[in-house]
């Protein structure tokens, strides 16, 4: 018989919010001295997804911002969940990343438990149940897309836990710009090339018309046959090559007269300071 004298420790898994009260007190005392508390880094983003004839296409820009500074010019916003399911994340960068990683691991366990490939509805359900449990404190807005036995599907999940199933979706700060492209040109059952161009144009609209989005367009095409990741499919914001030279050749301006006046300099004081290399 083995008696343990040490009491069992309470399982503390998942997120822990006990510092929120301390942060609130700190923020108020900081603002009194005139300082601002550091904010969570949000991926000002444009993410989009459409359902086309053979599957689903997900698209995202690649800029991560820290307030008004670009923190990452080429970050990856399309995350792997299962071999046939991918997820774009917007909102707070850390929340989106970690939530998708947790989902990916849960889905793997579920597939091993049931012996079946993952369903997109299963991923959406787990996601929204988790986000609802945290009552919006996890600031992750996600677009989940994939092809499973029931066909191609696209879901959006909001931070408070609501979800929508639609044929085309956009999220993030550039969503308004991107959805206007979709509302104008989306048609059901498009061909692959047409669909790729449409998503590219929608993300490009977000890149140009939204300050929080920029850099390149990433695409992820999911069909029954498999997944094709097109990182850097389009680079609309690349720095252009300078067309002309602004330097004038010597002799462009004609010299009329030349006068040389030497300054007689007298050495007053000389001191040498040796710089130590180490």
């Amino acid at each position, binding site marked *: 018989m083995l008696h343990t004298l040490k009491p069992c420790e309470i399982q503390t898994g998942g997120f822990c919010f006990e510092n929120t009260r301390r942060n609130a007190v700190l923020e108020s005392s900081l603002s009194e001295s005139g300082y601002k508390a550091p904010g*969570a880094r*949000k991926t000002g983003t444009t993410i989009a997804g459409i359902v086309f004839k053979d599957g689903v296409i997900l698209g995202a820009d690649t800029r991560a911002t820290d307030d008004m500074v670009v923190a990452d010019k080429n970050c990856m916003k399309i995350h792997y969940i299962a071999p046939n399911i991918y997820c774009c994340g917007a909102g707070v960068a850390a929340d989106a990343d970690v939530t998708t990683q947790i989902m990916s691991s849960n889905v793997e366990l579920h597939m091993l438990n049931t012996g079946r490939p993952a369903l997109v509805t299963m991923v959406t359900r787990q996601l929204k149940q988790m*986000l609802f449990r945290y009552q919006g404190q996890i600031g992750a*807005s996600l677009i989940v897309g994939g092809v499973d036995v029931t066909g191609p599907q696209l879901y*959006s999940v*909001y931070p408070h836990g*609501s979800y929508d199933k639609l044929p085309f979706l956009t999220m993030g700060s550039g*969503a308004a710009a991107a959805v206007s492209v979709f509302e104008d040109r989306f048609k059901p059952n498009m061909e692959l090339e047409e669909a790729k161009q449409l998503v590219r144009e929608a993300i490009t609209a977000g890149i140009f018309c939204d300050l929080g989005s920029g850099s390149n367009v990433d695409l992820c095409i999911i069909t029954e046959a498999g997944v094709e990741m097109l990182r850097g499919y389009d680079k609309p914001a690349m720095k252009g090559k300078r067309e002309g030279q602004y330097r004038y050749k010597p002799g462009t301006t004609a010299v009329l007269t030349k006068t040389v006046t030497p300054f007689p300099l007298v050495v007053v004081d000389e001191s040498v300071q040796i710089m130590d290399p180490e």
Partner: protein
Amino acid sequence: MQAETGPEWLSEEVKTGTTIIAIEFKGGVVLGSDSRVSAGESVVNRVMNKLSPLHDKIYCALSGSAADAQTIAEMVNYQLDVHSIEIDKDPKVCSAATLVRNISYKYKEELSAHLIVAGWDRRDGGQVFATLNGLLTRQPFAVGGSGSSYVYGFVDAEYRKDMTKEECQQFVVNTLALAMNRDGSSGGVAYIVSIDEHGAEEKVVLGNDLPTFFDQ
């Protein structure tokens, strides 16, 4: 907690600012809803079906916070499934309404959603229940959501007892059209569900097919 940068609708809770209505007729019920889901001033889904099935012949209409309403409907759907297997019969509408009411009442402070439960069962025919804030009351008809305030006068004046199914459907469509015209948070298309002993029949009335009234 976090500094709020960027447009507010990014972090705003998603609400179904809504118009929902359910009305009972002899032999069943008719439910109707608009289709607009907003986050702040932005519309995030313009074709959402807010009439959610709880069982084969029991539906509920969602309004308020989208996340809260969807979650309550999903939980009650599960609980009703288990309950109907346990009693080996189709569940009563008042059982479904009671389950919704239990959740709405217990989590009154945390939730902000209002569900109208309506359906048909063999014992009492068509029934409509309102579960606002945790109360449970059976009514001949019920309206809810932000758009309902604009049509209380209309429904009170136009409702008559013992309408036929077709008259009820027309009544529901008229009410929705009027509310969608006046309420900024309601719009899109109208979804109608008619439930009687034969089952539930879903219908969509697209924007330009909605009835028009005096419109300057």
